[in-house]
């Protein structure tokens, strides 16, 4: 079924790589690919079919909805920034520095991926809660308390999203040729300059991909948020929490909220992706 694509002349190949290629795809790949696509998109179709389109405009205009949306976008973005600030150096450490127990550290980094988010939220409470290891001290020394605050939402989101960033950036760093860093050193760049002027630009696509994943994960975050930060409209009630509560009383409202969340995230991700992949 499959056919080798004949070697094209360079100009032709360049043209072909831009547009869709006429190419026979093996059935053995096509069928599972389409099934996978259907599996991923049919639930979305389900939401679209059940959506109460006639009342949509009124529902969209409800202040609670906009408030939750604003809070979600703000907290997810703040969490992504937090992930970048701490995750990129952590990824660099894992990719570029040899130290004992690195395998263990790498495994620990991925803990939030496998930990049920609700458990993650409880764990955060045990550390940053009022009686927690760090939280008690923060409260006494600075009067700062994370639970039930917007900062708490950001912390919960960053906790679950950071592994995505670290894993993608570490992968990008490992894939990047470290000899560029050597070349920069011979040109007089110190380690920090090498990192900012050479390493970061080289792995920018990986960082962008990690940030996108982190943002998406943070935006959809529910379990750790409700457990660690609670649910209070305007302060800690993000879209997923609003969706969950709406499900209790009004399926249609829940569908509307979900669709808004989906539309916003898909739009943002699509725009960012185009932008980032346009750069080298």
């Amino acid at each position, binding site marked *: 079924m499959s056919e080798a694509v004949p070697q094209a002349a360079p100009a032709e190949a360049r043209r072909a790589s831009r547009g869709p290629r006429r190419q026979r795809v093996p059935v053995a790949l096509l069928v599972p690919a389409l099934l996978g696509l259907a599996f991923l998109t049919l639930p979305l179709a389900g939401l679209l079919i059940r959506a109460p389109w006639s009342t949509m405009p009124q529902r969209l205009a409800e202040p609670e909805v906009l408030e939750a949306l604003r809070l979600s976008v703000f907290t997810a973005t703040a969490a992504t920034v937090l992930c970048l600030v701490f995750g990129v150096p952590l990824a660099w450490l894992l990719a570029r520095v040899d130290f004992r127990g690195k395998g263990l550290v790498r495994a620990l980094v991925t803990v939030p991926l496998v930990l049920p988010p609700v458990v993650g939220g409880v764990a955060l*409470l045990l550390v940053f*809660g*009022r*009686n927690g290891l760090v939280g008690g001290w923060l409260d006494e020394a600075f009067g700062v308390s994370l*639970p*039930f605050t917007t900062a708490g939402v950001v912390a919960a989101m960053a906790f679950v999203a950071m592994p995505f960033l670290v894993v993608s950036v570490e992968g990008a760093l490992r894939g990047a040729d470290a000899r560029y860093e050597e070349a920069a050193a011979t040109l007089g760049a110190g380690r920090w300059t090498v990192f900012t002027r050479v390493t970061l630009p080289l792995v920018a696509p990986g960082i962008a991909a990690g940030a996108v994943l982190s943002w998406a994960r943070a935006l959809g975050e529910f379990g750790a948020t409700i457990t660690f930060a609670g*649910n*209070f409209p305007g302060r800690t009630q993000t879209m997923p929490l609003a969706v969950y509560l709406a499900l209790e009383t009004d399926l249609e409202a829940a569908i509307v909220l979900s669709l808004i969340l989906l539309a916003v995230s898909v739009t943002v991700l699509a725009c960012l992706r185009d932008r980032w992949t346009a750069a080298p």
Partner: protein
Amino acid sequence: MKTAPVAAAAALLALAACGSVDDSMGDGEVDGTVTVFAAASLTESFERIGEDFEDANPGVEVEFSFAGSSSLAAQINQGAPADVFASAAPADMDTVVEAGNAEGPEVFARNQLVIAVPEGNPDGVAALADLTDPGLKVALCAEEVPCGAASQTALDAAGVELTPVTYETDVKATLAKLTLGEVDAALVYRTDVAADGVEAVEFPESAEAVNDYVLAVVGGAPNPAAAEAFAAYVRSDEALAVLTAAGFQAP
């Protein structure tokens, strides 16, 4: 019983189970599996009641699915193969009855709100009004869920305006905030205050927001005979003793 139109999936499942249903109805004995959808707050009591029922009726196996009443109601209306539905809120049962998936629900237990505080009541909370102290962090259930609706009713009855730090998605989560020490008080059901380190403060306005637990056999139940038997057993004195021991009140 099977007068109401049922969802396609449930009908198919019922058809598939037809043979055994007819057999069991023929000789008047119950056997097979009875699937009970019950509100999460019933978990401990119903597991106990289920064991007792199995002891009393060898050949029957009780399977539970515990979740929020509204989720369970939605599942039943989408055709989930339930025999019995025990709801913590009459409103959720109503959606099932309105959809024609059950009839004649009966109240089998009642639950009442209390103020849950840490053991020893360190802040000296005695009434709902005490919760408005700005230095006190309070967790409530969200209004969308039954315990939240009940809390609001009680607060309205007491004329107390209360701003909690969080509106939790269910009563267990609300209590968890207290047991984790993140809040100083929480409005929860009396049955929930069984955990260590928590004590209940009763308040009179709770009478305005008594929560009825209702139960019905699901139309198109895969095992109607066993379903009827289990529903009857829940209303027995033995079952009531289990329920009251857990903090429920008799209907």
